[in-house]
């Protein structure tokens, strides 16, 4: 059996006193697109931030490409091959679009060259000299994804990439993620937009009260709908 690219076992995490993750188990295989579903406040964002190493109060196991990640300091996580696109997008207002794009250090070969990024996101090229936060919400999301693609990471971690965006932009982001998937990129995302997620994900995790309560491939989606509607409250 092939070892998964990312293996999370019995992961617990805390924000100070409050215990937020209660034994998360999940795997992500090379080339897969995985979506974590769940209501607000069940620990989806926390799961991503804990895997990234932003939340340091954590116990359990996180292995990436076989390497134990718990002892890796935050500024070495990206070098191990993890790239992060935060929910708030994290575009820097004092940096131009191009400076934002060039900011994350290249951590491995095989990142997308700048010309290709500009071909995929022509808007960014047009506006490369403007301050990052002068872009529209959709463009900022594209920029947040684009700057990680340059770095050559193996796993792209996205926190609610479609939040607050117009349908046409959501569709565009879906296309971008499909393009990435075709290139062999592994993607782990948290998404509230269920229809969007069902178009791009290979496999789902359903999260509730700080742990994974179900796991199923995209093919099982139809027979799972009743259960999902109940848990997600849609």
């Amino acid at each position: 059996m092939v070892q998964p690219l990312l293996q999370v076992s019995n992961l617990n995490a805390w924000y100070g006193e409050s215990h937020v993750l209660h034994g998360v188990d999940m795997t992500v295989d090379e080339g897969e697109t995985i979506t974590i579903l769940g209501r607000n406040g069940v620990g989806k964002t926390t799961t991503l931030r804990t895997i990234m190493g932003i939340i340091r109060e954590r116990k359990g196991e996180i292995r990436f490409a076989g390497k134990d990640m718990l002892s890796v300091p935050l500024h070495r996580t990206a070098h191990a091959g993890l790239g992060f696109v935060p929910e708030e997008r994290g575009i820097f207002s004092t940096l131009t679009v191009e400076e934002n794009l060039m900011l994350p250090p290249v951590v491995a070969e095989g990142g997308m060259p700048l010309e290709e990024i500009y071909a995929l996101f022509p808007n960014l090229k047009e506006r490369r000299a403007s301050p990052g936060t002068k872009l529209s919400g959709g463009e900022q999301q594209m920029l947040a994804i684009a700057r990680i693609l340059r770095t050559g990471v193996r796993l792209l971690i996205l926190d609610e990439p479609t939040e607050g965006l117009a349908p046409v932009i959501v569709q565009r982001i879906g296309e971008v993620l499909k393009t990435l998937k075709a290139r062999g990129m592994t993607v782990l995302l948290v998404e509230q937009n269920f229809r969007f997620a069902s178009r791009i994900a290979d496999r789902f995790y359903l999260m509730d009260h700080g742990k994974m309560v179900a796991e199923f491939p995209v093919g099982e989606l139809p027979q799972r709908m009743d259960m999902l509607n109940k848990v997600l409250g849609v």
Partner: protein
Amino acid sequence: MTMIFGIPLQAFLGQLLIGLINGSFYALLSLGLAVIFGLLRVINFAHGAQYMLGAFVAMLLLQYFGINYWFALILAPLIVGLFGAIIERTMLSRLYDLDPLYGLLFTFGLALTIEGTFRYLYGSSGQPYTVPPQLAGGINLGFMFLPIYRGWVVVISLAACIGTWLLIEKTKLGAYLRAATENPVLVQAFGVNVPLLLTLTYGLGAALAAFAGVLAAPVYQVSPLMGSNIIIVVFAVVVVGGMGSIMGAILTGYMLGIAEGLTKVFYPEASNIVIFVIMAIVLLIRPAGLFGRDA
């Protein structure tokens, strides 16, 4: 004699020049403070002491090793910058998780310790540092006499300010610095060693202060108290300019230096307080400072 607003032109230009020189020091010092505050969120009360250290290191290098002004202008900032980096790494960095007040108190204590040590070793009175022979003498500009060294201070400070501004605004290192000022956690998650960046920044701020100190050595006297005399004014400059704004710190430094100089011409009695009056007015009208962003 030519008069301007009822004042002899010579007196006017003379004070303008003094204002410009003081402004150069204000600009260099407030620039370092702004850089440190922007990234570390520490109000560096040791800045005056680091300025004083720069002047002392230059003087001691000359006394003990015969190292001249020109080498001291490079060596003293390096030595003080390294000292600052060590302080940050071993002590200041332990306080980042606490209330920002702790950083302020720590640097304040550090300043008192450094100043006290130098006062113990060298006494409170100032010691002269001679102007380097290449910059001795003056030029008669026709309307006034310009000591060459003072002209040099204005030019080289401006160059150092512009250089620092370019470093921060136009280089990759500067982009890291600006980004980490906005969101240090994310920049670190991208794979940038932010703790190292903080150490470098504090070292850079200390080095800028020391650079100003070496420049000041021949103008003022080298004394353990030279830092605490100037630092209060520099804090006022930073407040007027707006905390964390690089260009704001530079421009405000020169502006207030000139305002102080011109007040000496028109109403000498007010020259010592004019900067603080401006600070009070700015705080009332624009609490974020002239160039600061509203929080």
